Structure formats: structure tokens, C-alpha cells
């Protein structure tokens, strides 16, 4: 019988069977950031414990650091400096690798880790951050943990983990024009619910996934956690291997061929069995936008705000009603008639070079609508540098976007910078929870191209109706 990549990686890392589905699992890499990693490092120190293999532990400043040019350890978030300096000091004491402010490798953990070749196929990688599943797109088993578990992983090189059930989510066909990996994952969550993946590790398969470039695959896996999944991943193929080769911490020449041969064997076999399977036809997917306060509150951009009275499940209906009240939206309103106050491009979901290129193609020769605050935050110093070399920053600035330093920025509100009371934001991020981006801020999640198009029209926009900006400029 064929086996899935999840079972193969699991078996390769199983140190001991602890009974009743729990295993002691070997952890290859730990990544930390200053928000939740600081407390883990401090906890270890307080307990007098050491990091077993500090050369396999990495840390980055991303969550609290400011993203305005000229930033320092001082943050707009009250008390942020303590997180930054505690992390720096503890990282040094523990002997782990830190990508600090001022280092052009600094950026969002799930952008930096693949970019530096720290994540690659077949690894187990954990981070006290729920979007660690992003890195599963390289064919790694990567999942988010708590701070106490991070201490455990660093001190013992293992974690106690319940073996997940397996789910295949297969995307048949190829996404149509204007449809991105973000639309694919929002569609999945919208159709099946934010809790449908609870208890599962998900493998994304099918032509729709295989046809995605590596950076788009990160976007797909990034939101597996918004589906409730323990993690998501994609079997490695040529696209993955080409992406990994030559990166600073990836296997070098001495072991490259051996590693690649191993990774090819890890890919899921024909006939692998899953506990559950979902099949989606990419032809059914159009650009998506969220209208509520859960990622499951998603709709096709060319439809209307849904009507809670048509929902038969009373719990879901109540949630919809509350969400519409929070979002200040009336059922039946065409989504493309909803005006926005702000547009945000960034986050571990959508801040990579390919995202910014697609955004620049829309914005070239266009202007952000009057009164719309528009911000772009590249995912890492490396992304920023590469984008600037291509002139992407100029296109965005000319259009009216702010161009920032790398970090998580306003994906979430930590008490500092935010979009403001009741502001309506179209955002390329991953969570539209109440108050996520600011006090009573109303977040609409969408792809970065939909965000760019909406910034231009001043309303939630159907990106398919906007020709690429260079064509518009030539009209």
C-alpha cells in the first residue's frame, strides 16, 4: 500500500511510541520570534536548561518591530523594546542564530526560513507561531506550538505529539485568470468551515497545486491553520527542489544529490490512503473576499453580502449576524459596492517577491483612490532589496502606497500602530478576527492583487475587471 509524505516523515522522526496515539517526535529545526520566543528562551534560562543543538535553532525579530524607515529598538507598541532586547540577550546567551534588526536577512519568520534554506523537504520544524504550517509548502512537516513546547523542543530535540489523521485536499484543473493561491485557500475554508480541518494534517495535491510556483504554495499552506488543521504540506517536486538549491542553510554540494534522492522518495506514493478527502474543481473558484469575522466568512467577489436568515444552523446564523453587525454590512449588498478606507499588502501569507510583482503589474500607471491609506510591507529584507532592484517600490510609491521595512506590521494590532477605530481595510493577511488589525477595525481578507485593485477603485474590487496597469496606462 502506498504511503503519504506525512506518514513517511512521521516514521522517520518517531523516537518512541508513548501509547494511545502519542509519540515522541524528533525535531530538526526550531524557529523563534521576539513575541513568543522571548518567553520560551527566558523560561529555559530560568529553569537552568540549555538548548541542546543551538546551531539548529533560529530566531528573528518580526512581530513587534516597527516597519517605518529608520526604526530602532523603540516601538510604537508600548513595551515592545523589552521583547526585542530580551530576545536579543537571550538568543546570544543560548548561542542560537538571530536575524536581528539591521540585518538584511531579517523579516517575517515564515518568509525568512524558506528564503535562507532553513526549511526544506523532509524536516520537522516547529515555531511558537500558528502560521508555521506555511513552511509545509516545501514538503516539510512544520507546525505551530506554544512557548512551553518550544522550550521542550529546544531542551530535548523532541516533542510529544498526537499522530494526526490524514486529509487530502485535491485541487483539480488550474486556477483561472485573476485567481490566486489565496483565493483557493479562502474558497476551501469558506466552503467547509474554519474548524473542518481540526485533528488533521493536510496534504494539498492535484494539478491546481502542482501548477503553482513555490511562493504561491506558501500562501496555500499558510492558511491551513485557518481551516483548523494541525498543519498542511505539499509533496516536493522539481519546483520545490529548484527553489531550495543554493540557499545559505540548504544542503550543500557534499550532500545535495543524496538529499534530493531522499526527498523524491518522501513524496506521496500512488494509492496512499487518507482518512478524509476533499476534491475541489479550480473552475469553481473566482477571486474571493471575506465579509465577516472568521476566515470561513468568505464569498466570491462577484456576489453579495450573504443573508443570515438563509442559514439553517442556529449557531452559525448567530455568528453571521454578529459578524455583519461588527462589519457594519447589510445582507444583499453587492461586495464590489463596499467602500474601503485602507489597503494592506504584507504578512506571512502574501509578502513575497512574486506577490509584489503581481501587485506592481496592477498598480503601474494607476493611483490609489482618494482617502484610501495604502501600505505595503515586504516580507523580508531580501524581498525588499529584490523588489527595489526591479523598481517595484517606485511603482507602488507612485501609485500612493507607503513602502515599509520588513516585518509582520499591521497584520495584527499589538497596542501600537493600527488602522484606527472602525476603519475598513482590505488586507492580504490571514485573519479577519474582531479587533485583529485595530480597535473595531473591519478586515476584508483577499489576494494581494485584489487588495491592489481595491486600493485603486476605493471599493472591494473584482481584479478581473482591471487590465494590468501597463495596458491601462497605454490607453
Amino acid at each position: 500500500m502506498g504511503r503519504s509524505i506525512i506518514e513517511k516523515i512521521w516514521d522517520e522522526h518517531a523516537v518512541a511510541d508513548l501509547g494511545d496515539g502519542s509519540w515522541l517526535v524528533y525535531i530538526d529545526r526550531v524557529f523563534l520570534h521576539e513575541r513568543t520566543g522571548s518567553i520560551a528562551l527566558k523560561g529555559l534560562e530560568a529553569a537552568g536548561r540549555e538548548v541542546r543543538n543551538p546551531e539548529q535553532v533560529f530566531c528573528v525579530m518580526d512581530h513587534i518591530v516597527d516597519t517605518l524607515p529608520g526604526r530602532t529598538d523603540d516601538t510604537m507598541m508600548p513595551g515592545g523594546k523589552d521583547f526585542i532586547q530580551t530576545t536579543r540577550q537571550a538568543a546570544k546567551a543560548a548561542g542560537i542564530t538571530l536575524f536581528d534588526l539591521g540585518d538584511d536577512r531579517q523579516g517575517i519568520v515564515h518568509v525568512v526560513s524558506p528564503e535562507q534554506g532553513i526549511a526544506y523537504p523532509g524536516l520537522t520544524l516547529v515555531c511558537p507561531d500558528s502560521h508555521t504550517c506555511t513552511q509545509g509548502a516545501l514538503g516539510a512537516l512544520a507546525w505551530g506550538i506554544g512557548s512551553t513546547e518550544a522550550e521542550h523542543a529546544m531542551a530535548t530535540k523532541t516533542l510529544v505529539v498526537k499522530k494526526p489523521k490524514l486529509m487530502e485536499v485535491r485541487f483539480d484543473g488550474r486556477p483561472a485568470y485573476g485567481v490566486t493561491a489565496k483565493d483557493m485557500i479562502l474558497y476551501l475554508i469558506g466552503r467547509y468551515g474554519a474548524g473542518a480541518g481540526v485533528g488533521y494534517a493536510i496534504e494539498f495535491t492535484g494539478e491546481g497545486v502542482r501548477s503553482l510556483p513555490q511562493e504561491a504554495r506558501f500562501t496555500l499552506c499558510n492558511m491551513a491553520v485557518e481551516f483548523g488543521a494541525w498543519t498542511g504540506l505539499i509533496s516536493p517536486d522539481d519546483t520545490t527542489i529548484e527553489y531550495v538549491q543554493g540557499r545559505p542553510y540548504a544542503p550543500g554540494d557534499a550532500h545535495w544529490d543524496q538529499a534530493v534522492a531522499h526527498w523524491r522518495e518522501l513524496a506521496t506514493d500512488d494509492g496512499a490512503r487518507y482518512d478524509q478527502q476533499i476534491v475541489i474543481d479550480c473552475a469553481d473558484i473566482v477571486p474571493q473576499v471575506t465579509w465577516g469575522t472568521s476566515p470561513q466568512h468568505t464569498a466570491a467577489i462577484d456576489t453579495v453580502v450573504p443573508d443570515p436568515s438563509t442559514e439553517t444552523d442556529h449557531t452559525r446564523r448567530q455568528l453571521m449576524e454578529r459578524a455583519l453587525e461588527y462589519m457594519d454590512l447589510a445582507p444583499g449588498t453587492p461586495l464590489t459596492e463596499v467602500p474601503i478606507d485602507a489597503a494592506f499588502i504584507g504578512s506571512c501569507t502574501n509578502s513575497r517577491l512574486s506577490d509584489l510583482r503581481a501587485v506592481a503589474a496592477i498598480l503601474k500607471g494607476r493611483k490609489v483612490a482618494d482617502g484610501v491609506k495604502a501600505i505595503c510591507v515586504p516580507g523580508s529584507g531580501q524581498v525588499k532589496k529584490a523588489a527595489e532592484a526591479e523598481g517595484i517600490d517606485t511603482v507602488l510609491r507612485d501609485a500612493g502606497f507607503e513602502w515599509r521595512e520588513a516585518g509582520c506590521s499591521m497584520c495584527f494590532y499589538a497596542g501600537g500602530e493600527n488602522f484606527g477605530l472602525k476603519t475598513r481595510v482590505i488586507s492580504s493577511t490571514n485573519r479577519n478576527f474582531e479587533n485583529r488589525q485595530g480597535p473595531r477595525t473591519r478586515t476584508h481578507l483577499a489576494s494581494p492583487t485584489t487588495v491592489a485593485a481595491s486600493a485603486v477603485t476605493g471599493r472591494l474590487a473584482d481584479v478581473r475587471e482591471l487590465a494590468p496597469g501597463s495596458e491601462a496606462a497605454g490607453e
Partner: protein
Amino acid sequence: MKKFTELTAIAAPLLRINIDTDIIIPSREMKRVSKQGLSDGLFANWRYTEPGGREENPEFILNQDPYRQAQIILTGENFGCGSSREHAVWALAEWGIRCVVAPSFGAIFQGNCVRNGILPVVLDNALVESLAGQVQADPANNQLSVSLRSCELTGPDGHRHGFAISPADREMLMEGLDAIAVTQKRDDEILAFQARDRLRRPWVSL
């Protein structure tokens, strides 16, 4: 870690699905590099009238008597989804919550609970709603009893409902164990695994 064996307590129904950790504790309430002092920010966006303020919202259940003394929360599916922040569990524990009953939990949150002395109990939704109905009829007297010895929850009506928990999690909660110390007993196994793995996957060592 605080042990959990048995508990009879007031339960507060928060019947809503997908209550995320941003709701349990907003990021702005995580003000210091510390596991302490977080209960003040618990459910801050619901508990207080203004974002960032401290004036109590009288409509929020945990601001009402006798729910202020609740040690159990009854809630909807996917409780604790979203951000991995362990601060959500630290805040609940510091406020006084010892047990959360839900049809399902966010995976990271569930793991964080058992490492901090909070028992996550999985029961089906119809049962959670039925228990909530009984509790609401007379919250001070219609308490819930939870036994981790027998892995049973007893409702106000006297009916017992079994729940499942892994032996490792059960032992950790009942004994108040330090998970790292428990794993370190297997250090010989871990080191032997690591030595074998280095031969098998030499590229993984840095």
C-alpha cells in the same frame, strides 16, 4: 504545574463557535515578557466597554454573578483557534479557569492547556448545549463535576458523560508534571536516535 484531579465548580456558557485566541487575549494585552499579569486582559474586547479600557461591560457573562466565580467554560467548536499565543491559556488559568468543555479545540491551544493545568474536555455539541441549558437555569447551584480519575463529567441532572484524553496528557495533568523532565528520562533513546539519524540524513546537521 497545578495538578488537576477533580473539580466541582460553576460553569460559564460562552456558546459561540471559533472563539479565537485573539478574543481570549488581544495582542495589545500581552504587555511584558512574562507569563504573569495576563488575567486583566482576558477577553478584554468583550469584557470591557471600550478597546483598551477597563470599564466592565455588564452584558459579558464573566462580569455577572455568580459566573465571576466560574472555573469551567462551556463553549462551541474550535475554541482557541488562531494564534499560538500561550498567553491565552496563562490568562485563563490566572483568572481561575481550570477546565474548558467544547466539541473541539484549536490544536495548539489544547496542547497549551495540558501544559498549564487546564483540562480540555471534548464533548459533542448537543451535550454542551444541554449542559449549558441546565447551568443557566440556576448557575450557582447547577454546577458541573469533572473527574480526571474516572474521565467523566457529571451534569447538574446527575448524568455522567465519559470523555477521552491521551494517557500522557492525563498523567501530566494529574501529577502536575514538568513535560521536559518527563522526556529527559528518555534521553538515552533520544541520543541514540540522533546518532542513527546523523548517518541516515547527514545533510540535516548544521
